[in-house]
């Protein structure tokens, strides 16, 4: 049956909190100059289409997709410092976002991406791809086991280095709550020089930095980092999705 917005009490999505996000054009990050939109955005009241998240099932998650130390092994274990990345995905009303797909990708311990266009002169690790995915549980929690990524140089400005980071992609409950972000590590001295970090409003940068915590650390095995993520929410429980 076609969707009829008059028939259902529809959730209304909270607006994007523009103050919390970087702007499209930021001179410190050179690539924004020719790629960021210059015209003001046109307000669009979210309709059903924008409220739909993609449907997917647990069958899109393989057994080792959450374990980057295992999901690309060829002849042994990947090199580097094992770490656990875990956290809770919440909406702005502090409600857990269950069943959301969390996808991550990252450099290896040497600061090298598997990606074919990454030409940084640091070794690839035959046993590490650097990509993973999982789904949040009923409490909105996700958990990955991985290798701490290395810092790496890039061409944005002389002697530019990206701080150690892991890329994170999420949908949340709605198409319009889509978020692509990066998590950083506490105390990383490179953050102050990084235009992706400094392009983020200063007051909110700390939301991009995980906590190191012994609560998550597994003795004799892996260091633990907690990275909680807050997405746009809606003013009521949306329709069932899976």
């Amino acid at each position, binding site marked *: 049956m076609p969707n009829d917005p008059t028939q259902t009490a529809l959730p209304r999505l909270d607006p994007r909190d523009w103050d*919390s996000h970087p702007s499209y054009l930021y001179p410190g990050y050179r690539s924004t100059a020719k790629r960021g939109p*210059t015209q003001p955005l046109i307000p669009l009241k979210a309709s059903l*289409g924008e409220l739909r998240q993609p449907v997917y099932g647990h069958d899109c998650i393989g057994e080792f997709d959450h374990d980057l130390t295992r999901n690309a092994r060829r002849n042994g274990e990947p090199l580097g410092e094992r770490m656990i990345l875990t956290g809770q995905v919440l909406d702005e009303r502090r409600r857990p976002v269950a069943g959301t797909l969390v996808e991550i990708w990252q450099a290896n311990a040497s600061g090298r991406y598997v990606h074919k*266009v990454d030409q940084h002169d640091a070794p690839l690790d035959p046993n590490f791809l650097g990509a993973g995915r999982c789904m949040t549980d009923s409490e909105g929690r996700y958990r990955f086991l991985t290798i701490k990524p290395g810092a790496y140089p890039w061409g944005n400005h002389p002697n530019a280095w990206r701080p150690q980071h892991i890329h994170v992609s999420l949908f949340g409950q709605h198409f319009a709550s889509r978020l692509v972000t990066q998590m950083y590590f506490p105390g990383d001295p490179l953050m102050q020089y990084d235009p992706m970090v400094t392009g983020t409003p200063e007051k909110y940068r700390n939301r991009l930095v995980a906590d190191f915590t012994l609560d998550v650390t597994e003795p004799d095995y892996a260091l633990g980092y907690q990275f909680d993520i807050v997405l746009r929410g809606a003013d009521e429980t949306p329709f069932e999705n899976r």
Partner: protein
Amino acid sequence: MMSALETNFGQTPSQTVGPYFAYGLTATQYGYDFDQPFDAVLALDGASGERIRLEGRVIDGDGNTVFDALVEISQPDGQGRYPASVDEARAIGFRAFGRCGTGTDAQHRFVFHTVKPGAESPGEAPHVNVIVTMRGLLLHVFTRVYFDDEADANARDPVLASVPAARSPTLIARRVEEGGAVRYRFDIRMQGADETVFFDV
């Protein structure tokens, strides 16, 4: 809760997808040894609606085609339906969501295999919702694809009506029929005189 959020609760800031998303988000498309949960095929066997290819380029402020953009689309099937579950998607042969990077096509296009959507509700013109992100975008953008052979419906669509008339053509895909196949061309211009309309959704 993470310490930053205990004292500073709110939306997690967006960061750029960067240049290296391919093996994480679109691994199969790019030939990496990992699978991907979504791809460029929305319409499976039995999907309701006219089979189309939705294709185009992402173009930067210098007029160059962007070879490292990620385009995601969401749309209903030809009857205006979104599947509410994986089982329903399977039953109606339609996934409603697609993802395509611009790095594998020889012309650096995104190419989706889908159906022409039906209207979701009376008064709305058929359209496709689009998310574009790439290196150099610290925050993704939302736009919409409308269809040039839906002039009457487009003229009544409230969202198109909210767009300055001079800019609304940037939201209209062009129909091309070739050898029995139907394609719609939709280029996304990030900047310039004909910058695509992006929405605050």
